[in-house]
């Protein structure tokens, strides 16, 4: 752990100005990832800018949807009455993540920037291109046939430089509800779709999101879902709470008068380098009747490009079955599922 300076920002503009003056500084909100990574020596900021008191902790609703301040806690968002009623998939996803204590501390903005959970990333003694570009990918391993501990890693969107899976549950649901990320910089404010906010590792795994060094997340927007939308998040994990997803699926769909699917969003967790929107699965399902065959075909399409590694090949079949289960639950509820 390195010595660092701690300052408290008084407004979003003040926070951005302080960031501008202190290259390499980090914003701290809930701190549930950042402080952990600082203790491990993975993050070594010289300055911590506390952004907990900027008034970004409110949820407001208008005709278009929900506006959520970046510093609303994960618990606050998950337990919001409107979210539970109108965006249940978001509430379910948040409650499937971490533990009660962590959700009470963690913020919505922070969750968007959650550091990945790969053991190699978190251990400064081990190779990791995401932490130290050029050192190699420990999860991929040093020798063919002797891969690292990569059971938790991704099968979609990986690159030879990084195969870690994105750890967030909430972000998977945000992609499925077409959420937008509100971003401020000293120059201007912008809105970015959650789906495109996250970056694939490619040759630059150290760059995880679209957020610029001079920018700050100030909130997210949840647009109203189409009338009659059904949504659900399902997560498969090694224990019933406080475990990262092996696989998860967030689905939003509506059926038209003829019983065919006329709105569909499919997002997958635990399997992708980023919260994984599957246009492939959506293309199979859109305007299709909600049959087991269509679900199975969609799941196969979702994983058509999957690349398994030594210990995570099971994620392809499990990811497909997880998606099929959610789709079935949404159109034929009550088959005994306990999300």
């Amino acid at each position, binding site marked *: *752990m*390195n*010595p660092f300076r701690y300052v408290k920002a008084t407004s979003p503009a003040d926070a951005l100005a302080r960031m501008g003056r202190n290259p390499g500084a980090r914003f701290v909100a809930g701190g549930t990832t950042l402080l952990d990574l600082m203790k491990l*020596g993975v993050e070594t900021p010289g300055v911590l800018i506390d952004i907990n008191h900027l008034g970004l902790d409110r949820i407001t609703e208008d005709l278009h949807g929900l506006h959520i301040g970046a510093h609303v806690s994960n618990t606050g968002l998950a337990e919001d009455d409107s979210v539970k009623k109108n965006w249940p998939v978001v509430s379910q996803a948040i409650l499937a993540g971490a*533990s009660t204590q962590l959700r009470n501390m963690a913020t919505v903005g922070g969750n968007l920037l959650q550091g990945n*959970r790969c*053991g*190699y990333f978190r*251990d400064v*003694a*081990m190779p990791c291109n995401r932490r130290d570009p050029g050192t190699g990918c*420990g999860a991929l*391993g*040093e*020798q063919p046939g*002797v*891969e*690292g*501990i990569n*059971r938790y890693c991704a099968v979609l969107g990986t690159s030879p430089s990084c195969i870690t899976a994105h750890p967030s549950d909430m972000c998977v649901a945000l992609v499925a509800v077409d959420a937008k990320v509100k971003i401020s910089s000293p120059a201007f404010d912008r809105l970015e779709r959650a789906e495109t906010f996250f970056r694939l590792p490619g040759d630059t795994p150290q760059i995880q999101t679209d957020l610029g060094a001079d920018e700050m997340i100030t909130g997210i927007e949840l647009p109203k879902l189409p009338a009659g939308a059904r949504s659900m998040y399902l997560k*498969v*994990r*090694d*224990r*019933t*709470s*406080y*475990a990262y997803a*092996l696989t998860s699926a967030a689905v939003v769909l509506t059926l038209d008068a003829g019983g065919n699917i006329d709105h569909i969003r499919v997002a997958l967790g635990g399997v992708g380098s980023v919260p994984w929107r599957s246009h492939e699965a959506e293309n199979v399902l859109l305007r299709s009747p909600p049959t087991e065959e269509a679900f199975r075909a969609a799941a196969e399409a979702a994983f058509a490009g999957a690349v398994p590694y030594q210990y995570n090949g*099971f994620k392809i*079949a*499990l990811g497909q*079955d*997880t998606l099929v*289960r959610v789709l079935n639950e949404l159109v034929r509820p009550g*088959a*005994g*599922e306990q999300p």
Partner: protein
Amino acid sequence: MIPKNVIGAGIDRVDGPLKVTGSAKYAGDVSLGGMVYAVPVTSTIARGNIASMDTSAAVKAPGVRIVMTRENAPPLFKGGNDYTDACQSGEDWMPLQDDEIYYDGQIIGLVVADTLERAIHAADLVKTSYQSCRPMIDLTAALKKPDVTQPATALGQPLQYERGDVDKALTKSLVRIDQTYTTPVQHHNPMEPHASVAEWSADGSSLTLHETSQWVVNSRNSIARMLGIDQSKVTVRVLSPFLGGGFGSKGYAWAFSALTAAAARELGCPVKLVLSRRQMYSLNGHRPSTTQTVTLGSDRRGRLKATRHLCGTYTSKVFEYIEPVVLSTQLLYKCSSLQTGFDLARMNTGTPTPMRGPGETPGLFALESAMDELAFATGTDPIDLRRLNYAERDPRTNNRQRWSSKHLNECYDRGEEEFGWKDRPKKPASRRDGRWLIGYGMASATYPAQNTSSSVKVSLTADGRAEIEVASHDLGTGTYTILCQFAANELNLPVSKVSCRLADTFLPPGPCAGGSQTVASVGPAVIAACNKLLKFRAAGEPGEETVTIPGSQPNGFSWQSFGAQFAEVRVDAALGRIRVHRFLGIYDVGQIINEKTARSQVHGGIIQGIGMALMEASAFDPYFGRVMTPNLADYHFPVNADIHGIRVSFINEPDPHFGPLGARGLGELPLTGAAAAVANAVFNATGIRVRDLPILPDTILAKG
């Protein structure tokens, strides 16, 4: 209030208020004037040599008092490998004395600074380069190396053992089971991290250590020897009044304690060291992984004709720890032809050490899974199969020696009834509730009973208050409460009038809080001392008595505890999800002293068993040999949401031939066999037999 039947009653913990208000001081809570903070520097490779260590930045960092490496460390000595004489260290080797790296996370330096934060920072500034080699980290490969040995005994019992003629008996067996089972590395993960606070007197004539110790007498002797202290010249005092669990990891003495004391001696001020959670995956032991082959031969109904249990496991490069896996197989069932064998490999890991139910816990997973396979192969009900092979007398003595008491049949009967076993799905994968397949499984549990010598002092005041003093321990399991109950009962006092001081080597010596022996060892001494005080009590006078009671001497009976455990699991086979819906354990441990603390301790064992079955495993990088799960987020054991419907029942029949209390230990027993009960239930639910723990979602998917 005068106690009535205080023995056996579910009395609240006397130390409960101290603990829930945070006023119980654990070793890591101790804060002394002028105290400074030590942080170990640990290796980041698992095998090789230190090429160089650059401490220049660390030495200059703010607040740093000393940076100890092999260059400047004082000489330290092996801590002893003598359990019987209470001089048992976890490793037969000391750090900072040479350049060699034997395992990942090995101590290669110690940084001491005026605050913990500064010490952590300076420790990060020490830059070490290595000549590294590929570590031996794979048990299968290690078991093929020439350094594998076949140790003859463990705990005084033969590991390489045979009675009858197993090969001949197998050829005559109509039904044979021959399977290999594996269990992974597990870490103890007590909630309380290991800690040591060392303070020397100004003249160096005495050393006080606040330790996380399950055995303060041993900590004193071992740490003194590591430091090269002559105890006739220097007084060493070790205190460990409260423990936040240990599960065996705080039984043997570890090098970090001696380093703390050595630093305090160098600096002339008190030093505190608390291991980080990561360090607890290298520096205080673990349960080694095992690979076990069990061969059973039986007649058509399942009556055992032959049993063979061969185990391969490992120790570290710096200590010969033997996980006594096969011992319980020699005694659990009646079988005239039986063989056990044991191979011990060497690997580049931290040193394994006893962990709750050492030997029995991995061993019974294999044996009780194999018994379930035999039940399925013969079509015999799993409980009936065990009744059919019931050992009325100790099979190790040619069925001659009697058990001191054994009510295992009653455990089976009661479990069968209370669990509703007759309602179990007779065929695997035949019952479901929606998407969840339902299965029942059971297994036996067993653990030896033992006790050993303990001294105790009891003082009585004129106004009728008693105080017990003994260097015994409360791991969080209830020793404080139970000893108070004994004294209250003997002296006819309310429990509230009795107090207890534990785990201080200035008190009369007590035994290791290991091997489930505390109550059976210390309880009789408390009772004996109280009996001597009865005359003072009658006269209303103050008095004190110190007594020493030896451990039970061989009396022609075999001492063993037993149990039967039952699990109902629900499996969502398509997604590999497994839930233990309910679990029932029936235990025969003799007289129960406190129903409440006993039940609580057993709950913990069952939960640990569910964790062993479904999630616990430490992962090492296969190339670097580095621990990759060194925290409680990545090393999984059950959370509250995983646990449902645990029920516990005790036979509660005093053992007439084991110690004056008739109480055998129960700390380790519930973990033995528990994982097999869950795995057997998974088979009943799904038809999938899992022989490699833990049973993860992908395990079910791969076999489904």
